[in-house]
């Protein structure tokens, strides 16, 4: 096999896209979440995201990239091996046919994927804010990345069973363009599990806990939206028509979802809440993620609208259940990620990505069976991801609870983690 040729244009876009996705966590997610908590935990909440990014950055290089993306090894249907650990044996300045990005240097493919792994871990921190030990979180980052993210990423994006085994049993390879299952379902459902294991914040439900800085939430939302163009359009791993299409549908679904949730809050609560707009935007971004390389702009509108409707009701449901899944990663990432993964099996349009047909376009273009099989693959894989993630995260969470314990003492929680854990005060405005 001849060595693949590096494309400067594709490489330029991957360098840019990786940089954009990095910004989503540092500081996008950090500000989004920090704005939602009480002032006394603003630093702490940001640090969960920053530390997640930094820890994943190191581990990714050391062994996680290899685990997730090596197509070799005895368990390669489930997870890769350590052939590319410490990435020293493989010199990454050249492209490699091992990965989808055959026209870009392997180093930046590795870096691009690194930013995905990092944000996935960081999203989970939304469930533990205002009450959790830093040491428990650090431990969780390492374990979860290794035992949850690496396998699931391997399944969908390397040589895992949803792409290698499903076709052999008559189904279609499962599609997850930019991480509806790998990133959003996995982080969202893990957040739910953690919230359950860790328990509620002191005073939750009895005392008001309003977001202390909505402008930061909106800044975070904007940076997420901005960076998400790198996330979705970057997942084409080339500067081509598919990237352009992903760019446009990403924007479309997000706008539709933001307007929808904002309208819901206007109609149902009498106020056009800006947090509703922000939540909607994120729900739309999440839902379009798995579909962004397959659907057309009109379908994107539907995907966005439905995403907001689903996640809106899931938030209500979560609150009614009295669960302190504090910043709603489950309702927004988990459930809209689920919806987007299913929607990919409904709306995939072969005019956008030749060969990939969802049920609806299958019916239109006279290939209903292929469409139905695609939908089936999406459902099967989503449920498998869901099940795996919930179980393994539960085990990890329980182990950490036993070993170091999740919660800080009550006085620390009362004073706030900024002062008690970090010895810092977010703002001194006097």
């Amino acid at each position, binding site marked *: 096999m001849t060595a693949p040729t590096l494309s400067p244009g594709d490489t330029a876009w991957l360098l840019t896209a990786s940089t954009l996705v990095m910004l989503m966590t540092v500081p996008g997610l950090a500000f989004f979440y920090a704005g939602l908590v009480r002032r006394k935990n603003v630093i702490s909440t940001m640090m969960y995201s920053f530390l997640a990014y930094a820890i994943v950055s190191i581990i990714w290089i050391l062994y996680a990239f290899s685990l997730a993306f090596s197509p070799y090894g005895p368990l390669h249907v489930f997870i890769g091996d350590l052939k590319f650990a410490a990435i020293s044996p493989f010199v990454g300045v050249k492209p490699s046919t091992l990965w989808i990005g055959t026209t870009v240097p392997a180093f930046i493919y590795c870096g691009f994927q690194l930013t995905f792994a990092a944000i996935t871990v960081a999203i989970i921190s939304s469930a533990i804010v205002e009450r959790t030990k830093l040491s428990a979180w650090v431990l969780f980052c390492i374990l979860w990345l290794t035992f949850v993210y690496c396998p699931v990423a391997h399944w969908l994006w390397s040589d895992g069973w949803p792409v290698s085994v499903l076709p052999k049993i008559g189904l279609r390879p499962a599609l997850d363009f930019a991480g509806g299952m790998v990133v959003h379902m996995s982080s969202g459902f893990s957040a739910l599990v953690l919230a359950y294991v860790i328990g509620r914040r002191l005073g939750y439900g009895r005392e008001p806990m309003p977001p202390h800085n909505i402008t930061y939430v909106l800044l975070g939302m904007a940076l997420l939206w901005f960076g998400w163009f790198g996330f979705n359009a970057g997942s084409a791993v080339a500067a081509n028509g598919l990237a352009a299409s992903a760019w446009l549908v990403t924007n479309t679904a997000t706008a539709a979802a933001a307007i929808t949730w904002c309208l819901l809050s206007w109609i149902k609560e009498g106020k056009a809440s800006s947090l509703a707009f922000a939540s909607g935007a994120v729900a739309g971004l999440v839902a379009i993620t798995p579909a962004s390389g397959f659907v057309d702009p009109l379908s994107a509108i539907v995907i966005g609208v439905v995403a907001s409707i689903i996640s809106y009701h899931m938030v209500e449901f979560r609150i009614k259940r009295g669960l302190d899944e504090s910043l709603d990663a489950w309702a927004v990432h988990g459930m809209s990620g689920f919806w987007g993964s299913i929607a990919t099996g409904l709306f995939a349009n072969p005019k956008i990505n030749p060969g990939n047909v969802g049920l609806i376009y299958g019916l239109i273009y006279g290939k209903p069976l292929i469409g139905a099989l695609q939908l089936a693959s999406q459902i099967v894989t989503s449920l498998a991801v869901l099940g795996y993630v919930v179980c393994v995260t539960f085990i990890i969470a329980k182990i950490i609870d036993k070993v170091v314990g999740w919660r800080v003492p009550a006085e620390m929680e009362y*004073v706030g983690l900024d002062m*008690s854990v970090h010895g810092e005060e977010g703002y001194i405005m006097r």
Partner: protein
Amino acid sequence: MKLILAIIRPEKLDDVKRALEDAGIYPMTVVDVRGRGEQKGITIMYRGRPITIDLIPKVELQIVVKDDDVDKVIKIITENARTGKPGDGRIFVLPIERSVRVRTGEVET
């Protein structure tokens, strides 16, 4: 008339406000303050070292009421701001010599 200065936990403000409303006491002025009581703040053990956080955010209510209402207001505040743990706060009563309504200029007593 008396000025009631009540320093309470911020998270109890809503409860206290609601209870006062129920008793027909609406007017109040609220100030964001920081404070410490006799405990010298909160002392936490962190990684084996004691840490003292000495000025904790509190809310100060300033409520001017007729002399007859003082006891009622104090009762409502104590009952609704109480958690039973150190840091619940203090209420001070100060004499008011005169009270003027800006809108009308009228003097109340």
